[in-house]
Every structure is written in structure tokens, then in C-alpha cells.
């Protein structure tokens, strides 16, 4: 991480584009937490890349003064992986929604986690498709009535934390848009973590799936003595929890892909076409 010589504040990370989200949308808190985390870490704006997919939450890169990629629905992870592998010493964040990460782009998630590329992935989960106006999402609850499921959702919701824990994510946490201070702390910890970090954010959609009062009542912090190094315990909680737990669920260290790949050769040489072609003589 390359930090700034002059002190950067939250406003340095704001672009001149005003967010397009509905009033009260959980994503505002995610955006503010991102500004705050980047300012806390004093990261230079030109050394940060925010990569998103498609959806309400995926508009986020436009609202930051950093580099950004507004990619395709579900494709933020591969694209961010390319950005990171090209720029291993920069901070790359992947930000998007539950549809992006666990429906159309779900195939990329386990591989991004297993590769342990140093990406900070933030999933803004509102359990609904907001931008297309209220169809079911992969994390919608069984029985949830949406425009595309007038008789209720039949499928068991995908469990984001269990999925990434199983695939090998090395930093797994959950935050809640109504707790912005904790959110910024989780982002700081996720960015600082060397390896694939995944932060699940409960980010309610006030327009189509307003769950604030439900989560205000249900969300609970992980116990103070929670052992972050215990994968089995974390997976067990992901399977059994009835009330969503907030905080850092799991953290471990494992070789990081971008560093592994860039350390394969001790001595980097420029390409010598003539020498290379000798093998075909």
C-alpha cells in the first residue's frame, strides 16, 4: 500500500458525481464507509481501483475519485483479478450486489476465494433485485413474495458466508449498513488483510425490500471472545445462525496469488525474440 504524503480526508475520495440511490438506501452507508476506510488508510486516489458489476450497488465506482471499472453483470471478480495481477501493489476493491456475486457471477466467487488474490470484496446484500424493480435474488428468503415470485420464493437462499468460507476466503466478515462505524472498520481490516477478503454487508433496499426494522432487532455482534482462526466454528455458525452475526468471522494467512505469481522468476528479463525463436531451429 502506498500512502499519501499530504493528509487526505474523506472529501478527497468523493467524485463530483452524486449518488443515484433512493433515499435511505443501505448503499449510502457502504459508500461513506469506503470513503472513511480509504481516508483512514491514507491511500492515494490514483492507487485505488474500485471494480463493480451491474446493479444499483454497482454504480459505486462513479461516486469515488479513484480509478474504477463499471463492468458487466457478474463479472466484477474476473475483471478486478486482472486489474490486481497487472498492479499487485495497488488496492483493488470489488463492490457489488448479491445478484452479481451469487447468481450471474456466482461461478467466479469460489475461484476468486480459492486463488487468494489480494482483493477486498464487498457484497451489498439487499435480498432483492432493485435496479430491475423487485424480482427475487439468490439471497431472497423462502416464501418471499416478489414480482417474479408472486407465490413466494421456492429456493433455499444461497448462504454467502458459508460459500466463501468453503471456497477458501482468508478474511470473512459481515457488516450492516445501519452500523456505519463498524462497516468502515471492517473495510479497513479487509483492505489491510493480505489475501482474498470478503465482507458481507446487509444493505437494505428501502424501495422494494425494507428490512431495516427486522435487522435492527435481529443483528447481533459476534461474541467478544470469538476465535477468528477457527474455520470449523465459523462454518458451523454460518450453517446454524438464526440471527445474523456482525464482525470478523474468520481470518487466516495463506500464500497470496499475486505475490506467488510475481515471485516465480528471480530475474526478470526483457523478451528477446531472436533468442526465443532459436528453440524452433
Amino acid at each position, binding site marked *: 500500500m502506498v500512502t499519501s504524503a499530504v493528509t487526505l480526508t474523506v472529501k478527497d475520495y468523493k467524485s463530483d458525481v452524486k449518488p443515484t440511490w433512493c433515499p435511505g438506501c443501505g448503499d449510502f452507508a457502504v459508500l461513506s464507509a469506503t470513503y472513511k476506510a480509504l481516508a483512514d488508510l491514507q491511500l492515494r486516489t490514483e492507487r485505488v481501483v474500485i471494480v463493480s458489476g451491474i446493479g444499483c450497488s454497482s454504480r459505486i465506482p462513479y461516486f469515488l475519485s479513484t480509478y474504477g471499472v463499471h463492468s*458487466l453483470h457478474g463479472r466484477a471478480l*474476473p475483471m478486478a483479478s*486482472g486489474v490486481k495481477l497487472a498492479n499487485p501493489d495497488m488496492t483493488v476493491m470489488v463492490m457489488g450486489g448479491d445478484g452479481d456475486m451469487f447468481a450471474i457471477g456466482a461461478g467466479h466467487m469460489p475461484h476468486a476465494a480459492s486463488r487468494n488474490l489480494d482483493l477486498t470484496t464487498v457484497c451489498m446484500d439487499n435480498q432483492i433485485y432493485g435496479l430491475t424493480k423487485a424480482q427475487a435474488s439468490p439471497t431472497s428468503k423462502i416464501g418471499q413474495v416478489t414480482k417474479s415470485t408472486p407465490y413466494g420464493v421456492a429456493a433455499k437462499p444461497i448462504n454467502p458466508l458459508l460459500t466463501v468460507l468453503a471456497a477458501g476466503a482468508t478474511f470473512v466478515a459481515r457488516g450492516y449498513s445501519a452500523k456505519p462505524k463498524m462497516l468502515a472498520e471492517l473495510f479497513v481490516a479487509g483492505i489491510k488483510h493480505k489475501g482474498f477478503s470478503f465482507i458481507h454487508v446487509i444493505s437494505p433496499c428501502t424501495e422494494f425490500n425494507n428490512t431495516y426494522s427486522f435487522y435492527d432487532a435481529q443483528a447481533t455482534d459476534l461474541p467478544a471472545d470469538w476465535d477468528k482462526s477457527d474455520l470449523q466454528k465459523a462454518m458451523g455458525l454460518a450453517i446454524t445462525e438464526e440471527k445474523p452475526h456482525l464482525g470478523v468471522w474468520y481470518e487466516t494467512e495463506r500464500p497470496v496469488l499475486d505475490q506467488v505469481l510475481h515471485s516465480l522468476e528471480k530475474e526478470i528479463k526483457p523478451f528477446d525474440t531472436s533468442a526465443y525463436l532459436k528453440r*524452433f531451429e
Partner: protein
Amino acid sequence: MEKNEIIIRLAGEGGEGVISTGDIFTQGAARTGYHVFTFRTYPAEIKGGHAWYQVRVGAYPVLSMGDGVDVMVAFNAEGYYNHKHLINKGGVLIYDPDTVTPEESSSVIAYGIPFNTIARKELDFFRGKNLIVTGFLAGLFGLEPSSLEGLIRSRFARRAELLASNLKSLYAGYEHATKKIEKRDPYFLTPVEKIPRLVLSGNDAIAAGALAAGCRFFAGYPITPASEILETMSKELPKLGGVSLQVEDEIAAIGMAAGASFGGLKSMTATSGPGLSLMSEFLGWVSMSETPCVIVDSQRAGPSTGMPTKLEQADLNHALYAGHGDFPRIVMAAGSVEDAFFRIIDAFNLSEKYQMPAIFLSDQSLSHRTESMLKPDLSRIHVEDRLRPTAEQLKDYRRYAVTESGASPMSAPGMAGGAYVAPGLEHDEKGHVDTPLQSHIIMMPKRFRKLDGARKDMGQLSRHGAADATIGVIGWGSTEGVIQEAVDRANASGHKVAALHPKLLSPLQVDDLRKFMDSVEHVIVPEVNYSGQFAHYLRSILGDSVVQLNKYGGLPFTPGEIFKKIEEVARNGNQRGNSHR
């Protein structure tokens, strides 16, 4: 009369050594100074199934796999029965009498050589059979065994015990041909001046060209017949400080390549038709966000999974039109192995300069065949790097500044003042997405204008054949050599024919094509597909009717097939009664 150009075909069970025998003989011949052109086809299974390998070797440049077979080596009965009808009159059959009982034939010279018995009983080394055959061919046609010995020595450099047995096998075969049989055939490779040539496959050439063009990021997913590019890049890129990665699917492959390109590296992915289908969604994003990216499609016979190890040139429509919406793209196709090396560099240059996807079409024939070529003149290599913003431009940076050429200076993460969001949404000069209607009207022509520059950069198309031709042949991709050979043959037999072979397929070099078509009476368009995709494309842009020549059996054209069509058109004109105009 001695014949110093030979078409040798080896056929047998897959995994039996058919391919390796062919490869060693080919390399040895090329090292001695001969020109070689190979074709191979093998079953999609790893072991078993019918495999064959063909090498055409001569003292003069060989442009195609040729017509028929001069020398047939049948490793088993199936090999014999599948190919015996292709043996040219006066040709040679080499077989093992223990496994093959050939029919009586007065037009074929047959040598029954007990390869299996020699290997088992004389040498006590059954795996030496391939090299006995290789040595026999060398002895029969007068190829110096020293070049073959060198190859075997380097192949088994670290396995001394195997080296001795393999060399013994090679010389056993060689001596069998020179001492134990009486040569009755006219084929003889006359000694040639030993000019060092390279022997490489199309996929080797594509990887080498990409590295020379500055490619430093590759992501791919294994698929026949493109996998060797992934394998080569994975081996070579780390040495250059680059990255190559096998990823979960082709969508991720092109996504990572696009991401790495946004991140500042020249990037490529390689696939075949099924993979290009998956990549389609990204083509539009890459063009919209003006991110350079090279996509190699080594075509195979489709549709769907089709025939993975067989040839077809049937992804042209997909390369030209895949993706929703209107967007510019570069599509190129190479004509030969040497051409693949230079054209992939062109593809990178155009993609980098004009910041759009460049789809590079190879195919099963080109990717997997080997050809000999002179060491390329490296002074011909020009590498284009993407336009970067100046310090002045970064003061009020407009990533998508409207310019005359259509291309705008492109920043990369790390450049202060250069931050922008690469969008798939319609956007203004700064990349902002809030006034799409207005932006769309400005940005569509800006993006498409870049094609004019790309067309100009490729220079003029050069024609092959008669200056006063009445018949023109227009092809694309890996058929360049076989078309030229057919045209040469036609001109030698009194016809007036010329060929044109555009390498840039999008945008098409319309003026040169127009000029060529106007200069001839009839145009034949040979292509290895059923429907005539290129013929339709030419008609749609130039409005002319053309004579289609389509082949779709999974194998390349022979010069004779194209020559026959030329004769037919010379005799009857366009059979539908109208010329192409």
C-alpha cells in the same frame, strides 16, 4: 525420373507413435534444409482411435498438404484400408506384413517391412518401432541420418539408457532401407543447401508473436485446438515479469484480460468457437470502454461441441457480429504459420492503437500444422504502444476525448490525475454516464471512426498470380497456401488466374477488393465451411455475386480441389449464368 517432393502419410492407432514418427522425420528434414508442411488429425480421445499425420517435404517451398499421397505408411490394417485409395499412381506403400495384408496392385510399389519383429526380436525394444520407421524413411529417400540423430540425442539427453536403444532403432531402420531392400520407387530427396529454417506450429507462432508484440498478460481456459497457446504463455510469461493464468471459464478469461489491460498490460486470451461464444458479452464492453484486448479463436468444426479436432472456418460470422449493439472491432485471420507470427503482432498493434477488441482467427489446420520458415526478419517487427495522456492532458483529463482518429489518450492506475471509471454505459468525454442520449450521438461515430485508421494502417493488399487474370480467387485464413498453389497450377496450364487473400476482415479493405473484383470476370471464394460465410460477407459489402467453393468434411482443401473449380469456372463461367457483377 526422380521425384524430389514427397507427400508422406502415416496412419494407425492413436497413441501408437504415428504423430511422433511424423514429427521427428519432419524436423530432421527441415534441419537438413528441406521445406516442410504438415497436417495432423487425431481422435478426440487420448488413446485409441484412428490418427494420421501427413508431411509434404520438398526442395522448394511447399504451400499446402498437396494432392493425394505419394508414400503411405500403414501402422495397422485400419490405416491401410482408410487411406489406400489416396495413394497416387506409382506411389509407395510401406507396411508391416505381420499386421497388414495389402491387395495386389500394379500401380503401387509396396515394401513389406516387419517393423514389429525387428523391434521385438532384433532389438528387444518394442518402443523403438517409431524410430525404425523414421530411420527406414530416411534411408529410402536419402535423408542424412545425422540430423535425426541430433534430434534424438536432444530428446533423450537426460535418459542415457533410452538414448542408446532409440539410436539403435533409428539406424536399424536406416540400414534396412539402404542395405536390405532394393529401392524400386522414384522418390529421392536431392541434397539441398543447408539453410537453417525454423519449424513451428501455428500455435507456436501465435504465442511467439504475441510475446514479441509485448503481451504480458494472458488468461485462458483449456480448449482444443488452442490449449498450446495457454501452455506456452504459462511457461514464458513469468520469465518476463508477466502473468498467465488458467481460470474457471472463458468469461473469466476475457474478463481478466480486459481487467489487466485496463490495468496497463497488453493482454490476450485464446480459445476456440465454444469459448468465443461465452466471451461474446465482453466484446461489447471492451469496445465500449475502449480497452485494448486480443482474443485468439482457433476455429474447429461446429456447431456446438462439433468435431473438436477437425478443421472448419465457420466462426467468421461470430467473430464479425457477436455481441449486442453496434460496435467496432478488429477481426484478422492469418494465412500460414509465418503469417500468424506477423499478423498477431498486427492484431496487438491495432487493438492497442485503436483501443478495441481484436479477434484473431486461426483454425485447427493452422494451429496444429507445422511449417518450415526462414528465421523472420525481425526488422519487420513494429510494435505499437497505446497512447498515454501527457502531463498537460492530465490537468483536466478526458479519457474519451473526441479526436480526429477516434482514439483518445488512455491513462492507467497509478497515474495521478488520470482516474476514470471504465464504463459499459454510454458516457461523455470524461466517462460520465449522466447524459447518455447526447453522448451516444457523439460517441458512436468517434468509436467507429477508428476503423478508418486501422484499414489504412494495414497498407495495400497484394495479389498473387497472373496480372491479366480473368478469374480471381478470394480466400481468408489458413487456405492461403493451398489457394496459391492451385492458382500457380492453373496459370501453368494456360488459365489466367490471380488470388487475393485479405488478412484484415474487419474492417474490410474495400477499395483493394473492389479493384481486384473489377479486374476479373469471375470470382471464386473457397472456404472450409458449409454456408459460405465469407462469400456472403463479400456480397453484403461489395454487392457482387461470387462462386462459392465450400468444403465441410473436417479436412483442409487440397490444391486439386481448388484447381478443379478454377477449370470448371473457366469452362462454364458462373454456373448460375451470371458473372459476379
